[in-house]
């Protein structure tokens, strides 16, 4: 079935149009983003079970963007009354005028920016889903997930807990200007099975995740993730510390995705170009990776948790080739950064929710596949590691450093696994070296969307990333 667009937002629309008209008498540009996204979350473990309707992206509210005198201002509210748009217009003007008074008192000048264009555009998208989170019957699911948790507990004497966490969000967004009327409705879901083990006072944690642009049907075979989660944690119990050094590595698709995200995901977010915070601005059309390195970014690149039809500034979704056979071609851009840089927006203007500012953000960030087989890649390694599982990462667009915390490494010597596992693994390095040393890429690839991105340390949004198995060289510690 189609995920139905919010009746609440439809009912709001006439009032919001009136609000735009009222504010347009005082401002040169007015846009409105209204959201009504509902969710369902289930967390099952041996020690606690919980259910709720909140996920990372559930929200209901409105943000109004206005422009005057070279300055963009925004006002976020969650109590818009469509029968009384005059009251909201008055509150917005009064508050923003008070802010301008404060700025005058403190001697602050605006960072002059041009006016956004408002070409006519209409989009209405309702994506397919089997289930809506707001209508899900959970009784069978609680039993099913509890049984998975119980089965996990029986898989090892070292088990402390086995968790099944799932959530689904029905996203509905309405974007309006004088000339734009955009509506979208889609459902995405994500989940994980996780195992916590303890042996000799040491705790270890293993998990396997799944995600997709669909409803709770995603979890029909979630029990297939159980063995992998428990096996990972069991392997970590007996893992060694890695001898720090530079190694040949093969990255699993999950780790390839983490590299894509941290390297030339953040490295080419063009709002950072405006601030002079990204080295990428100086490397357009220059080599930053090997011939085997091609990378795409955009909501249209893949169908996963952030595959929307338009972004939070009313820009249609895109598919950007950021790196083409090793050459950095372009970055991704929100609408205001595009104005400031004299380029076009790529559909990557995203907010944590309606209360937050737009920044340039990633959607699906993915390495292209190659033509090698994993077997041949392993055979080609003299001494190195197959890296699996990602825990976290951190970007450094200014200096092109990268930090990836990886769950484990499987040692390879003379083209074969030795059976030795090392964990945890910290992969660090200089991004062009890491990408420049890519010498093999597998023919298959996977996309993962169970994580979030904080653009540093705040402003959390959903992202997905992935790629094939990649062979390169990196410093591990």
């Amino acid at each position, binding site marked *: 079935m189609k995920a139905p667009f919010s009746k*609440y937002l439809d009912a709001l629309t006439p009032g919001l149009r009136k609000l735009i008209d009222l504010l347009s008498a005082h401002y040169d540009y007015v846009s409105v983003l209204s959201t009504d996204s509902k969710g369902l979350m289930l967390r099952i473990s041996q020690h606690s079970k*919980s259910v709720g*309707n909140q996920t990372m992206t559930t929200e209901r509210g409105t943000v109004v963007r206005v422009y005057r005198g070279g300055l963009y201002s925004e006002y*976020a509210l969650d109590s818009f009354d469509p029968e009384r748009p005059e009251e909201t217009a008055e509150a917005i003007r009064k508050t923003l005028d008070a*802010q301008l008074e404060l700025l005058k008192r403190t001697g602050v000048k605006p960072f002059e920016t041009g006016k956004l264009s408002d070409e006519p555009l209409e989009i209405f998208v309702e994506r397919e889903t089997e289930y809506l989170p707001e209508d899900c019957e959970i*009784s069978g699911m609680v039993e099913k997930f509890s049984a998975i948790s119980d089965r996990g507990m029986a898989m090892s004497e070292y088990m402390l807990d086995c968790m099944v966490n799932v959530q689904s969000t029905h996203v509905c967004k309405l974007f309006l200007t004088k000339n734009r009327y955009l509506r979208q409705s889609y459902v995405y879901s994500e989940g994980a099975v996780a195992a916590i083990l303890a042996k000799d006072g*040491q705790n270890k944690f293993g998990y396997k995740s799944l995600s997709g642009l669909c409803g709770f049907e995603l979890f029909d075979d979630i029990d297939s993730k159980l063995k992998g989660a428990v096996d990972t944690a069991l392997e970590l119990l007996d893992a060694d510390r890695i001898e720090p050094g530079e190694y040949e590595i093969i990255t699993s698709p999950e780790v390839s995705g983490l590299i894509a995200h941290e390297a030339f995901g953040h490295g080419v977010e063009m709002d950072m170009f405006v601030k002079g915070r990204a080295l990428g601005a100086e490397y357009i059309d220059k080599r930053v990776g090997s011939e085997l390195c091609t990378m795409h970014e955009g909501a249209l690149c893949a169908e996963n948790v952030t595959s929307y039809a338009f972004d939070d500034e009313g820009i249609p979704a895109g598919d950007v080739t950021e790196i083409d056979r090793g050459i950095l071609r372009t970055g991704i851009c929100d609408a205001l950064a595009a104005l400031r840089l004299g380029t076009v927006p790529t559909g990557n203007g995203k907010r944590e929710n309606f209360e937050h500012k737009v920044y340039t953000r990633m959607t699906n960030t993915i390495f292209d596949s190659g033509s090698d087989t994993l077997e041949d890649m392993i055979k080609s390694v003299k001494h190195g590691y197959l890296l699996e599982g990602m825990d976290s990462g951190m970007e450094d667009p200014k200096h092109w450093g990268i*930090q990836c915390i990886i769950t484990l490494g499987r040692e390879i010597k003379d083209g074969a696994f030795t059976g030795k596992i090392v964990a945890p693994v910290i992969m660090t390095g200089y991004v062009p070296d890491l990408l420049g040393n890519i010498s093999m890429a597998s023919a298959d690839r996977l996309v993962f969307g169970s994580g979030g991105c904080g653009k*540093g340390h*705040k402003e959390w949004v959903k992202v997905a990333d992935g790629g094939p198995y990649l062979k390169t060289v990196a410093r591990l510690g």
Partner: protein
Amino acid sequence: MKTERIAELLRASSADAWEIIDSRIKGWEFYFIRHELDQNRAKDVEHVTIRVYKNIGEEAMGSASARIAVSETEENVKKTIDDLVYQASLVRNKPYRLNPPRDFEPMPEYSGSVEAEAEAFINAMNSVRETETEDINSFEIFTDSVERRLINSEGIDITEKYPSSKVEVVVNARKDGHEIELYRLYDLGSCDRDGLVRDVEEVLQIGKDKLIAVPTPAIGTSPVVFSTDAALEIYGYFLDNLNAAYAVRGMTSFELGKPMAEDIRGDKVTLNAVRYMEGSPSNFACDAEGSPIRDLCMIDAGVPKAWCGSRMFTQYMGLDDAFDISNWEVSGGSRSAAELRKGNFLEVVEFSDFQVDSMTGDIFGEIRLGYLHRDGNVIPVSGGSVSGSMRDNIPEMYMSKETRRYSSARVPAVTRLEKVTVSGISGEDQ
């Protein structure tokens, strides 16, 4: 819908217990590129979360929660409550009792405003002393005034008003065409102008050194000194392992009355919950479930003394007066910061993202700027990483007598861990 009406609907429902947290937030935000305004924002929102509890026989209880949009109709709120009651009846947990009303001392009333706080922050940032070669790249100011009300079916009705602010600062330093940046994110209550300016100017100074940093050598196992907010991760490990949820799940090796490690040769950790901390954004009289917060010794000289955490897990442990900690402090150690900086060691002042995994005790972080102290010489270094384990370091870690506050925690200004592996990038020991 008004909170009172939601409470009436909950009372009239078949829920056996319930709670509401209603946070009204007025916020002003200002985003700067250099010192020019990129954008100004305001928000006026209300977050209402309800949780309903349903008894399942005599030996189990379930709960389900929902965020209620303030624009929601009464009909839909009623339906949501009915759905939650049904969902709660399906998730079996051990029963526990919600907090009853208890006497507590209210916090001093906050009488500030987002306007005044924002102006103070803008003036503070504009007064930072910059030079031609070290300056502010960009900064963001977030000032919220929050009024949080907690109501539950046991009769609790507590309202607290407090400021909550954030300042994100990116600074640059440049020399001979080479430019670097450093990043800081401050979680604050009201504006502490002098403290903020002092800290940003300190970061500008650090930026100079990053310009001349050389690749970190591979020095193997080494003492490492932490003198920034990275120390919060180290001491957060202790705090997390005192959480009742960790204890109930068997995830902590801490036991009350038993030293955290045998044969401790260094300083022993003393950690206290603190009810009020000047400048903290977390000065609450009660936690989010209505448990009164008080000063309490959690770890005394390396010996855990008390558990903390949510009502659910502390009740499971039979604790009736436990609470979720807001502010906390770690006492200073036996030596001065200067004494801890003696000998050969690496002091890291900028990480990409330093982390201590509270569950496994693993330590890791990429070095963006450190100072390598070798035989009386000090060399700024960059790159590579530190790794290790809290289990290996608890027996010998040192804390300075001097302490420093970051957000809602006061910790030793300098912390020295003796067993940390430093993976360099220069390929060989120097």
